[in-house]
């Protein structure tokens, strides 16, 4: 078997707050292969976003290693494109097309002419060709997220890092965005690491799901998913099982503390 594209080994992450040092994750290990849709799933406080930022290179490990194609990650770079939850991730002074071409040229991936062509291609892919020359503030939230995804994919990174990109959208838009992402994946087969706190979203989007429990974030289990919500041998649905693993045990633990 090939070595994994992304190899996270015994990763402990800490960051400083006013209240002191917080341990976000403790000895987390997982491996992402090429063309995986790998989902990090857990309640708030499980360190999933911090984990994604560490893979992005914004945070250095306190312990353990993150290897991308065998080399440790030291700083942010265009081989790992982030798609954030916030709508303000687009540069407001650039049009939709310029937002994509800026990423390509500023990172030195392409020259201006080729960048323009590739930008048009990916903007068409997310269905925004008609809005290519609009400024971000004239777009809806869903359209802004589509631009961010087009920008991420146009860079053709090794891995696309998505940090709850649909969390701030309304339910209908979220659903169609999820369908679109799956369609794009069928076409391009990119690798994506996707953070969410929604169990249905994880099952729908993920080929593999890593469950994290909070305070500090630890790996609880890993599941495979085919997009449906299959029943296990004991008749328990995958979603029910994930819910039990994430929450009932935590409740027992809390009860134990009292």
């Amino acid at each position, binding site marked *: 078997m090939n070595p994994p594209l992304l190899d996270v080994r015994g990763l402990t992450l800490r960051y400083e707050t006013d209240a002191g040092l917080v341990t976000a994750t403790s000895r987390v290990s997982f491996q992402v292969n090429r063309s995986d849709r790998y989902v990090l799933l857990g309640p708030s406080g499980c360190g999933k976003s911090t984990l994604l930022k560490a893979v992005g290179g*914004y945070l250095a490990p306190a312990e353990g290693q993150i290897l991308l194609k065998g080399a440790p990650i030291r700083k942010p770079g265009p081989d*790992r494109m982030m798609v954030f939850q916030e709508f303000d*991730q687009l*540069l407001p002074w650039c049009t939709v097309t310029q937002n994509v071409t800026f990423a390509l040229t500023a990172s030195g991936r392409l020259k201006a002419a080729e960048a323009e062509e590739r930008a048009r291609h990916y903007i068409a892919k997310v269905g925004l060709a008609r809005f290519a020359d609009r400024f971000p503030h004239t777009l809806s939230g869903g359209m802004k997220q589509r631009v961010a995804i087009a920008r991420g994919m146009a860079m053709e990174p090794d891995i696309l890092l998505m940090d709850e990109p649909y969390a701030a959208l309304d339910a209908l838009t979220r659903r169609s965005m999820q369908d679109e992402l799956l369609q794009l994946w069928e076409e391009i087969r990119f690798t994506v690491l996707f953070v969410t706190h929604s169990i249905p979203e994880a099952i729908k989007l993920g080929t593999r799901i890593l469950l994290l429990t909070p305070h500090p974030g630890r790996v609880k289990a890993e599941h495979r998913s085919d997009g449906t919500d299959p029943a296990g041998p004991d008749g328990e649905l995958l979603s029910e099982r994930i819910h039990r693993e994430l929450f009932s045990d935590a409740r027992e633990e809390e009860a134990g503390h009292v």
Partner: protein
Amino acid sequence: MSDSGTVRLPLPAARTGAAPAQRRRVWRNSPLLRKACILLVLACVWQIYAVQLDKPLLFPTLTDTLQALWSSLASGALFTRIGFTLRTLLMGYAAGILLAGVVTALAVGSRLGNDLLETFTAMFNPLPAIALLPLSLLWFGLGNGSLIFVLVHSVLWPTALSTHAGFRAVSPTLRMVGRNYGLTGLRLVLRILVPAAFPSILTGLKNGWAFAWRTLIAAELVFGVSSGAGGLGWFIYENKNQLEIPSVFAGLLTVILIGLFVENLIFRTIERRTVRRWGMQA
């Protein structure tokens, strides 16, 4: 009251009502027209009052003022004064902005620089720059140097203050986006932070300009002659001494017109082409 009467009545009313309604709409939708009317009324009031008062030494008529303005413009005297003032202003403004850039860079770059900027702006912002003119004259003598020193003070602090605030308000997400592209250091500042902070920077430039313009005219009133040339402020002062009151009014009018031109045309245009177009109003 016949039936036909009630039917016929609304028709002529609607027909005659259409024109006033349209006129009302034009009136409502064009602030420029309304303001032009206000100016026209003010001009009439000025002229009538001055003619009635009949004391040209205290309050010249509008026509006398315009005549004085025209003759000073035609003789070129006013142009050299305007040129002198604008040249000094641009030198001081440019130096002030440059310094503001350096100070802001220091403040963004280090905690001590940040404290330094906050302390200095707290000290100098409430101090009208013109209050430094006596000291400035003492240090730099009767020349352009003194004016520029005062100008730099009037521009530096308000500009640095809002530029710094602008940088600090750039969203962490945008910073992360920039670093994601592999931008660091100066490239990150120039390509991400400066445009992202541009609304505040523009506000700073506008405030800096307004302070500089008012300060310079005031400073020139106190002293304006250097190497045989004086600016607009001096033009006003000199004409007052010679009791050329219409020319004093013409000088004041020029100060207003230039101020209006820069603030409403130049800065408004920059604003429309940048922050408004980007939906980034600060």
